[in-house]
């Protein structure tokens, strides 16, 4: 990730424990970008589209999305992001969830998800997966908001 552009990571995850573990392991991978954490879909969407600091009005972002949310399905958020107009549409979305149902995975890619990762239950694998995601994030190119 281009550090000078300060890409912010938007994490939409209702489980605070998971959020903490994800954040810890991303940091351990050496990613120091700003991480905004949202516990529900409504506030996350509000931030993405309306916040002056959000990707719509401000710099580039990357979304980490859990599918099991209390107020709406993660796939709805994914659809809203990918079917919107403007810069948010080009925001990379990494679906990070417990569901490994093949239909669900297919549906997410159909809706335009960029990466789909199943959270391994085994913590060592989980930590490793997040760290690898961190490495991935460090090389990923995010579209410039100005373009």
């Amino acid at each position, binding site marked *: 990730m281009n550090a000078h552009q300060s890409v912010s990571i938007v994490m939409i995850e209702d489980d605070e*424990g*998971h959020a903490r573990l994800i954040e810890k392991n991303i940091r351990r991978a050496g990613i120091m970008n700003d991480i905004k954490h949202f516990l529900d879909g409504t506030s996350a969407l509000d931030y993405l589209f309306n916040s002056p600091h959000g990707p719509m009005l401000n710099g580039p972002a990357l979304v980490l999305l859990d599918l099991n949310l209390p107020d709406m399905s993660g796939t709805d958020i994914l659809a809203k992001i990918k079917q919107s107009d403007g810069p948010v549409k080009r925001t990379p979305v990494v679906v990070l969830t417990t569901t490994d149902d093949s239909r669900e995975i297919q549906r997410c890619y159909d809706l335009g998800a960029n990466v789909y990762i199943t*959270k391994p*239950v085994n913590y060592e694998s989980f930590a490793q997966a997040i760290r690898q995601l961190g490495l991935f994030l460090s090389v990923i190119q995010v579209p410039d908001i100005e373009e």
Partner: protein
Amino acid sequence: MAGEQGHSFAVNDGKIGRVLIAFMAVGFVALIAAGIAAAWVTGEMARHSQAVSHTYEVELSIAETRRLIEQGETTRRGFLLSPTTASFLDAYNTTAAALPVATKRLRQLTYDNPRQQVHLRTLDKHLRELLALRAESMELIVAGDIAEATERFREELSSVRLRQIRAVFDLMAREERNLLRTRDAQQERSISLFYTVLVVAGLLLGAVAIAALLVVVRYTGDLAQSREQLQQLNESLEAIVVDRTSDLSRANDEIQRFAYIVSHDLRSPLVNVMGFTAELEAATATLRELVERAQEEAPAILTEDAQLAAREDLPEAIGFIRTSTQKMDRLINAILALSRQGRRVLAPEPLDLMRMVGQIRDSMAHRLDETGASIDVVGSLPALVSDRVAIEQILSNLIENAVKYRHPDRAVEVQVRGAAAADRVWIEVSDNGRGIDPRDHERVFDLFRRSGTQDQPGEGIGLAHVRALAYRLGGTITLRSALGEGATFRLSLPPTLSLQEKS
């Protein structure tokens, strides 16, 4: 809808049958009565004609006797007038000889009639006197005493004897006529009786035929009606079955969804427990290092409790949390796998069971070689159209169990056999292993339940999975076993899996 099932049908086959048999019996009785009447009437007719001919015979006989008497009188008179004419004498002698024969015959014919006998006795008395007079007069004529004979003859002419004889004959003739009339009347009565019987029998037969016809018509009507009811019932039954089936599959879907959601939602907190346990472990390692450094550099600040906590209590607690969460993870995965299996769409195809067992054997070849176990198919296995994955999982689970739970004293021998019977196909997997206590025969099919010595790894999932699969394929699985004597699992399936359930 269920209320219709208690409906009673109007048609009672047994009752109808009895009524028809009763009608037929009445008809037969009428026929027999008509037959008996006909036979009786025929007998009566025969008897009557016999009686009629008898009467005529009697009349004939009376006339004959009378003729002989009159002829005798005539010839005697002729002889008296012309004594020289021998032919008169001859004729007289002939009639005199014939008369006793005729009277005897008359007596015989009227033997059974006392009134005629009375008449006959009167006749006899008169005849005897007449004959005696005749014989006398004839002798007188032969002797030439014509005058005396003529005198006698005249006397006799004036006497009433001959007229009395004639009157007796008339009486007898009338008597016979009366008899004949009585018999004719009797005859007519019996004939009319016969016709009455015939008419009654005919009417009875007609009535029986009409009644039977009505009964049959009504029975047919009832039958058609009940068939209609049956059809309606059948249709409603089908609707009920469809309803229940969809209810069932809905309930099943619900359970599957429930299991899936529960296991997923259980996984989420488990990730936290395991994750933070790992974090704790890392933190404990740091703490232990600190404790060790403190022990070396400033033992005074180190309490025994802190030392114990860092070295033993924390690692122990973390260890227990770890093994428990790992176990929970395995269980959740098992539920997830089961529910996923339940959601899988079945695809029936013709299966080569021999090959399938061969493949399972090959996949276990290493383990079989190590333990000296053998897996054999006895005879040939039946043709089966079913879901490949499901059947494979059932068979491999059963065969793996058979190899796994061996008897410590003998080499494992697994036998697979099967056959098609009626509308089912059965496959048996039997082993010579340690066997299963009959008390546990139901339990072993339950999820997370196991039986016997717990010396083998496993979660108690395999047989639950097998049973769930067997049910899904429309089959059943049963177990025969005694402790220490091996076990036989029998899988019974429909020969062709039909996908009626809309999953």
